[in-house]
């Protein structure tokens, strides 16, 4: 399970959900951060993939991730798309998870800004009308 953080406003950009990726988003909303693992070669992919990009197997299973990792790099985006103007600047970064996956997402800087190499805990950001994943400060 990963923490669920309530954000009391509408989601700025609703992520598109396919028949395949709905599983991911539905589970995220309940605090389960999952992705696919190839049933043939065991490769983990993120985002979830129906077809393994390494061995092309169509057999996969969803596995739950720890959500723990560290911050590889980060930025603040001041010049943003129209729909994101109300929440600019955007705090964004790349997180490397313990399981060996790299994830691009919002950084939840609460108090001190997150720094490169900081320990990270992935979170579910629960907006009024949808969810996204984000990264907050974790424990070493």
């Amino acid at each position, binding site marked *: 399970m990963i923490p669920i953080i309530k954000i009391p406003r509408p989601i700025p950009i609703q992520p598109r959900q396919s028949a395949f*990726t709905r599983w991911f988003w539905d589970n995220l909303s309940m605090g389960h951060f999952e992705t696919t693992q190839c049933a043939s070669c065991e490769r983990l992919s993120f*985002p979830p993939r129906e077809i393994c990009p390494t061995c092309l197997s169509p057999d996969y299973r969803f596995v739950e991730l720890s959500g723990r990792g560290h911050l590889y790099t*980060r*930025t603040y985006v001041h010049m*943003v798309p*129209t729909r994101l103007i109300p929440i600019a600047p955007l705090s*964004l970064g790349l997180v490397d998870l313990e399981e*060996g996956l790299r994830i691009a997402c919002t950084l939840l800087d609460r108090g001190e800004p997150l720094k490169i190499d900081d320990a990270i805990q992935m979170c579910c950001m629960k907006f009024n009308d949808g969810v996204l994943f984000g990264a907050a400060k974790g424990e070493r």
Partner: protein
Amino acid sequence: MVAILSAVAIPVGRYMPGDGARGGTYETDCLVRVAAQAMREVGVSGKDIDSVILTMNPPNTQQVGFSAHFASRLGLQCRGQMSEVMNLGISGGLAFDQGVNDILLGRADIVLVGGVLYQSAIKGHVGMEQGIRSVGDVEFQSPFGFTPISWYALDAARYMHDFDLTPDDLAHVAVKSRRWARDNDVAQFREDLTFDEVMASDMIVDPLRLHDIPQRADGAVCFLLARDEIVADSRKPVVRVAARGFAHDGHHQVGDHPHDMTSFPAAQQACTRSLADWGRSLQDIDLFELYAPCSITELIVMESIGLSARGQAKHDLLQGRTSLGGDLPVNSSGGCLSRGHPPALTPLYGLYEIWQQLSQQAGKRQIQNAQSGFHICELGNYNAALAHIMEVA
């Protein structure tokens, strides 16, 4: 081999009429004028051109079916092909490459390669709506707001963490670029730019400021390519395409497994392949036009292709090695920061600079006795790279 018969470019700038404007010059008119000039300069008529390969216009261009419309305006009746090429920032390089291929395959004797891009009247925030869809997975990355420049900023932040590089160092890339651009007739920005002005400019995507990134711009470029023996009958020196190399790292912006973002493997591989194709080394090249939308990108590409040692590009910059008179002239056009960056056309503007330098038409920024030039362009976060080596025959 294939050589450049003629080349014409307009200054990178702002030409796009705003909404409801009357009396402006629209895309087809603009490119027809440029192409007609390129054809007149070497006495080529519409019936002489066998293929037309243009960069594809962005969705805001009202005229769809652009290449057919364009060809009809110049009386072209092609036997090779007539097409529009698109793959984000690398588009111009691919169009050029495809033109070279048509000649090598015997499908054409003379090929027109070019493009026009109008985007400057689109407000930045509106353009970013398209931008986030171009440089990320629309389901899993775009909703967060990763803009095109944000990926280079992520590179920059990590590079600064791993190596001795500061925002002050990056500012010198912008200042160096502007010094080159002052003497370039097709540059978007030619007025002086100081270090203090760069450092006082607005933060756009941390740690990149306004002068670390390109501004919105329009442009138009046209090349006529032909076999070198045809070119030799028309002009000297003959500037020919000596080699090429392409590589793709397999990622869309970023891999899903950790990898180093302070170097660009595709740039390294494309460069290596082009040098193998040429049969000579990087030390034999006289000038370098590197597709570098941001200050940090120029430094990382320099290191990735082996022009500078890892972590040393800033020292080569600060020692003046990449400036006029230096032994490693980089982006003598002024690059994306000052020559300007109409993205799909940037590769064609880069090749245009090499053409000007190798044909001794570069005026005050002329690199003495330049005999060969290296050009590289990219898409994504340098996920794919295409290199061309040009030389005087």
